[in-house]
């Protein structure tokens, strides 16, 4: 195949999409710069994050080599293993900060819910791509069960942020598979109806508290609303051009909690202002558009469904994180993708981009 037509570039032969790669590297650079400031100029933290980025990059590279057909074949197995591990976490998992998310595998600790961010859309894409498109009601019902099982298991850990991301990843697959708008709107109304029992039975007290203070953060300025108020002050005081790199006062005076993880956007907005925010949003937008472009070019239903789900979940990351630190969404633990400090989420994200690159570079070059 490669011998036909103009010989593909080196990057293409390595199964890498150069355009996407440039945007991702740009995000990583911005991330490292702001992390340096948020951590109080800690070299050690930057080094650790650099190592993680390196690992994530290698993971992306490896996954890009696997063809979408192979991924499709392995999806059910991956999903079953992931689900079993989720059950294992609830039974024998390690508790960190009150939530049971980790599985101790002797050598290292593993967070199965992180893997499910990819395994769930893969499973759904594999299932629906082999059925009639758009899916019949029976298939839709089975797909929803496939989705609901891991989401409930993750929500029970409790990990609201991840269960939100996993369920949106799954719903995007179903949406892209062409479910009729009637059904979609039907589910939205049903979802509203479902929220009430979820609020009453499934959510933990601290999650309810978070939602309540989101609706009115000023009601609890020193308790749970404190984070959002301080975060808004940091963002707002950034103004048009910001206070300058390393010069954020709010973020440096310990007013901001979790400065280098979930709340890193506040530091960014304070130091680089609205203009900086627009640049960051633009880079994110470019990543998403490139992703959608890749899926529109994609061959095969599996590739299309999975690719769009991955890129739209990336959108949800951004929207939920920035929405929460700027006070329009409740505080759920969702990191700012590619920028927040932390190991597992960055590996999952880059693995997702690896899949997108694989989709783009494994196309069969047909004569048009």
């Amino acid at each position: 195949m490669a011998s036909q037509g103009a010989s593909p570039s080196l990057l293409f032969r390595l199964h890498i999409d150069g355009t996407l790669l440039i945007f991702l590297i740009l995000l990583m650079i911005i991330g490292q710069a702001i992390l340096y400031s948020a951590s109080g100029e800690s070299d050690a933290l930057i080094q650790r994050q650099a190592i993680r980025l390196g690992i994530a990059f290698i993971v992306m590279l490896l996954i890009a080599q696997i063809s979408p057909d192979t991924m499709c074949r392995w999806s059910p197995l991956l999903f079953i293993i992931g689900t079993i591990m989720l059950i294992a976490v609830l039974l024998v998992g390690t508790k960190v900060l009150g939530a049971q998310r980790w599985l101790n595998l002797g050598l290292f600790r593993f967070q199965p819910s992180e893997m499910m961010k990819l395994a769930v859309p893969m499973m759904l894409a594999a299932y629906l791509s082999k059925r009639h498109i758009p899916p019949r009601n029976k298939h839709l019902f089975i797909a929803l069960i496939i989705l609901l099982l891991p989401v409930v298991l993750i929500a029970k850990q409790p990990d609201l942020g991840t269960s939100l991301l996993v369920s949106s990843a799954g719903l995007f697959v179903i949406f892209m598979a062409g479910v009729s708008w009637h059904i979609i709107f039907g589910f939205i109304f049903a979802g509203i109806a479902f929220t009430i029992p979820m609020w009453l039975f499934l959510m933990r007290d601290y999650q309810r508290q978070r939602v309540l203070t989101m609706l009115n953060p000023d009601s609890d300025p020193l308790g749970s609303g404190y984070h959002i108020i301080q975060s808004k002050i940091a963002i707002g005081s950034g103004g048009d051009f910001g206070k300058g790199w390393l010069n954020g006062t709010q973020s440096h005076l310990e007013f901001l909690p979790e400065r280098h993880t979930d709340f890193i956007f506040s530091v960014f907005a304070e130091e680089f202002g609205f203009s900086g925010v627009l640049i960051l949003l633009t880079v994110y937008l470019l990543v998403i558009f490139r992703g959608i472009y890749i899926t529109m070019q994609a061959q095969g239903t599996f590739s299309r469904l999975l690719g769009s789900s991955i890129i739209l979940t990336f959108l949800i990351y951004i929207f939920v994180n920035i929405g929460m630190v700027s006070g329009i969404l409740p505080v759920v633990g969702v990191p700012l993708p590619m920028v927040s400090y932390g190991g597992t989420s960055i590996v999952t994200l880059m693995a997702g981009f690896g899949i997108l690159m694989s989709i783009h570079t494994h196309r069969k070059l047909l004569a048009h």
Partner: protein
Amino acid sequence: MAYKQHLKDHFIEQRMFYNRSIVAIVFTLILFLILAFRLFFLQIMQYDYFATLSQNNRVSVQPIPPTRGLIYDRNGIILAENLPSYTLQITPEQTTDIDALLKDISALVNLRDIDIKKFKKEVQRKRRFEGIPLRFRLSDKEVAIVSVNLHRLPGVEIKAQLTRYYPYGKETAHIVGYVGRINEQELKSLPVTNYRGTNHTGKLGIEKSYEALLHGQVGHEKVETNVRGRILRVLERSNPVPGDDLYLNIDIKLQQVAIKAFENKRGALVAIDPANGQVLAMVSMPDYDANLFVNGIDTKSYNELNTSWERPLFNRTVLGSYPPGSTMKPFYALAGLELNVIQLDHSIFCPGYYQLKGKAHKYRDWKKWGHGKTDIKKSIVQSCDVFYYDLAVQMGIDKMHKYMSYFGFGQYTDIDIVGEHSGLMPSRKWKKRVRKQVWFPGETVIAGIGQGYVLVTPVQLALATATLANGGQHFQPQLVSSIQRKDDALPRQILPQLIHNINITRPENWLKIYESMQAVIHSRRGTARRLNKPDLRYKIAGKTGTAQVFSVAQDASYNEDELEERLKDHAIFMSFAPANNPKIAIAVIIENGGHGGAVAAPIAGQVIEAYLSQFSDAQLRSSIPPKTTVKTGLPSDIKKPSSNTHKEHSHG
């Protein structure tokens, strides 16, 4: 036809997918517009409002570390206290060149390499506007010198703090232990919020095992700061809750008597109150000064302590495993009687050696020409080995193992400091499991005189002696007697924890052992007769022991004199007094000390004398003989009345 249908489906699918992709693009744009508008609203439209808030936002919450609980001995003498001390700290943000600054400071005060090393490590870890301690415990002179020069040392501060101090640092190092600066590993396991502002945590001994009680609850202070983070005014304060004070069962005066009696010998002594398991004295020699460790010991001193062949850092009382030798004999004799293997009138003829049936090997008695006709009493008083070779073979190792475990041999004592060895009381099962070998009869023979595989820790031997002395009540040894919480009017007493009761088949058996052990001291041929002084107000019961040292630890350096010294036998002595009303049970082990009666017994004698001097003659005299609990037969299995956790109750 089907092909055509397929193509059509494919085309519909493609169209549908394109439509949905357009929806996705619109969806993305809407979400981004929402974010952009929200941020525009915050950063541009409400900029003035938030900028003002940010300017005024100088209220920060600072932790106030709690004061650590104090530790007292049983008479209220303070063993661990907090003294005010001055710490020199640097805020990196306010300095330009840290290395130059350190050089300037070292010209004024003495800085050790370890101070600088630890400081630099923390600079990496903490945020740049946080003060990082460089030197603890500045002298008054150093405080004065630094204060005068503060104007040319940007970022340097002198802070008054409380530092842990052990007035009896050497005497209590192996009991109280010490606190040290929190290291990275501990940082992960300690509760983060409660340790904000705390620099030290318990590393060893009581300080470590009671860390949760001693530490207390952190308080908070809302302060107004300037833009750089310096405190201008305190707005609000929630006071920390100080840690609980602990009262120990240890009598520091008695501890000092014991240490003095050791002179410069190596070994361990544990004294326990048989009535309740309270630990009265616990000595491991040589010792070291715990105060050295509080603010980081320098490498040279540490290496000296750590590599010394005398091993001062090694807590022999709970970690030292020694062959108990002849001190096991009273326990074996009791086992033989209670298990009906021998009767009170049992006697053997000792020719100076023992042979297993059909074997040529001779197991020697320490007395070459033998003890002649030997009954139970004589076997204990003169420590006849052959009597016990024979008894062990009659009993068998498994019965020995079972009965000895009633006294806690081979088992953790659950003393309330972290880290102890279990010693070893061998059995067939144990050998099969651990050594993957069958048990040889010859091993039973030597186990009969407390040699071979048998190993005890000094605290085990003292506890077993206490259990023997009080008629079979096996307590958990306790160092802490009560906990004084700040809000409580009276301290909460920790109740004695009875682990189990040993069933008594016939009280006469126990009395026989007591009588024989008393004769070890108070008869003409007793091995510890030198303790028998005419003016003694009480009788002592005891047993000497001399344990062979089989091998020398393979250390790097030794000289010949040293080696010879280290091949000498361990001297052991266990005893309780008064013999008919025991108030103290004691075990002494002197490493390479030679004979137990000559070396270990006098030390025990001095401690007993010092402790019993507080009691009147009447208090010493009353007598409680052991009572029968089971009429006949083997003692049934041990009942555990409670778990080994500490139970507290409020008293008063």
